[in-house]
């Protein structure tokens, strides 16, 4: 039977899909799960990512990493700012989806504004963090000794369950601003804001593969992320204790950097930028 709305049109219903390498595929496994609002009503069926989707996302992130890191900080800042612009544009959709998650309209709007502002705040750091975290070190000898921060590489992010949008933005922005690429496992209970966010990314000049967003079950995906030798760091901000433990165990094989173990879900701090960088130190002879 065909559903017809009162206006006599056919419903055009949206398929909520994954975001991998700048594209919107369904899960290769063909699976989906039901996303519900705070009252238990069905909102949508969303893709349930499998380990193979995660593998493809990591592959895309690894491929994108070199060029993204090679862009000037200024350019990355422009792109982050562009994300904020497009989020602002889709503000009403975000607010509605957060409302479905249980927020009052006023609180939902406030969260959207906070998320946009946070993206703008991190955009500003793009061409400044290396001045702050880099240094000309004093050494006893005829050398310049320079330390500079460099991106860690491919970062896996287990996004907080709530706040569904602000949590995602707060954990993602400090990762990508320095040139890392990201594979995000979105909030399991409220995946829709993350999917709308991926549509924002699609129209924000973010190169394919820099940010990949998987909807699904963190408990299923996190072990594969933790064990993946091509993932250099994992943000655990959204991981429940059992998942966190499993990620820590998996991370030993290639000594992944683990961040977000303190449980903050909407932190705004330059130290979070520093957490996903490695320090390169160069010695250069002086007076030659």
């Amino acid at each position: 039977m065909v559903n017809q709305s009162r206006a006599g049109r056919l419903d055009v219903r949206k398929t909520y899909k994954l975001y991998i390498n700048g594209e919107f595929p369904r899960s290769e496994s063909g699976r989906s799960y039901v996303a519900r609002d705070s009252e238990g009503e069905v909102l949508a069926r969303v893709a349930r990512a499998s380990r193979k989707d995660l593998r493809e996302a990591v592959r895309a992130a690894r491929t994108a990493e070199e060029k993204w890191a090679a862009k000037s900080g200024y350019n990355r800042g422009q792109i982050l700012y562009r994300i904020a612009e497009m989020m602002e544009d889709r503000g009403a959709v975000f607010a509605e989806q957060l409302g479905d998650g249980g927020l009052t309209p006023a609180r939902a709007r406030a969260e959207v504004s906070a998320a946009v502002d946070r993206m703008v705040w991190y955009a500003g750091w793009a061409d400044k963090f290396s001045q702050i975290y880099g240094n000309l070190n004093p050494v006893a000898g005829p050398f310049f000794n320079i330390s500079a921060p460099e991106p860690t590489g491919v970062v896996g992010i287990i996004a907080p369950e709530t706040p569904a949008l602000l949590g995602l933005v707060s954990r993602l922005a400090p990762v990508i601003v320095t040139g890392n690429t990201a594979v995000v496992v979105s909030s399991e209970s409220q995946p829709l804001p993350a999917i709308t966010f991926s549509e924002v990314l699609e129209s924000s000049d973010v190169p394919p593969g820099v940010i990949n967003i998987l909807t699904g079950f963190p408990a299923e995906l996190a072990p594969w992320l933790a064990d993946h030798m091509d993932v250099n760091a994992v943000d655990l901000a959204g991981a429940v204790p059992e998942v966190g433990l499993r990620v820590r165990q998996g991370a030993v094989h290639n000594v992944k950097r683990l961040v977000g173990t303190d449980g903050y879900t909407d932190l705004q701090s330059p130290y979070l930028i520093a957490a996903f960088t490695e320090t390169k130190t160069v010695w250069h002879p002086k007076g030659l």
Partner: protein
Amino acid sequence: MALAVAPDRAALLPERITNASLAGFLRSVPSTDEVGVEERVASLSTRSIKKDSKSEALRLAVRMMDLTTLEGKDTPGKVAQMSAKAVRPDPTDPSVPSVAAVCVYPAMVPYALEAVAGSSVKVASVATYFPSGQLDTKLKVTETSRVVEMGAHEIDMVIDRGAFLSGEYFRVFDEIRRVREVCGDQAHLKVILETGELGSYDQVRRASMLAMAAGADFIKTSTGKVQPAATLPVTLVMLEAIRDFYLATGVQVGMKPAGGIRTSKDAIRYLVVLNETLGSAWMTPDWFRFGASTLLNDVLMQIRWLKTGRYQSADYFTKD
């Protein structure tokens, strides 16, 4: 002009070998159903290979590999490094076998021989003015005999595609035959058709028959310097030519796809097509080779993934 061809291979050939009679022989080669070939490989490519078979297939792919470096910037050091990897592809996993051979430019043969000494790895050298083959026959033969003298176990020669395409079949035939002669008992001869330049499957099939009749031990798709290099459909066409030749003469000829095979998945697809076309008699390094350089790391990563259950990173495998 009377030409000596190995008697068993002569069964297909006209009694008197001239350009005209060779052209007649090649006209008798059946033409290829392009759509059929592509559909056949497409259906074989989707075949699902289960874990145990995959593990076996990957190890077989390693044993069949001709690890190749053919660059103007090759140095003795680079060749020594690659040869060490050929002997022991994964230093952390002794269960991974050595590759079949290393494939290098003539000047690098002595260094490769030194580096693989005492192992099962063979040294293959390209020859006959690789990759274009645009040189006169005499110098090509001289080059080959020099490489054979240096001790190369296998010779990868190129055919003169210009001559083949302009109908000078006798010249192509004669060149292969003479090169085969100087290879003697010491060296295996692989004949590169450079299928990317031949234009059609029919031409590939004719060139395959010509090369096999003239004495090729292996026929090989490409130099790796021309796009497209090896593809599955072209490989199937050549495998079918090998089957036809075997049925007509009883002589078994090997196959080497080369260039553009970069992933384990690709390699396994080639093995499926091989097994379905020629059967298990060809499923050994004696009769099938992969010409590749980046493929090895991908296969090693897959082997380790199967062993550990963890997805692998190129960061933990040597670059070659």
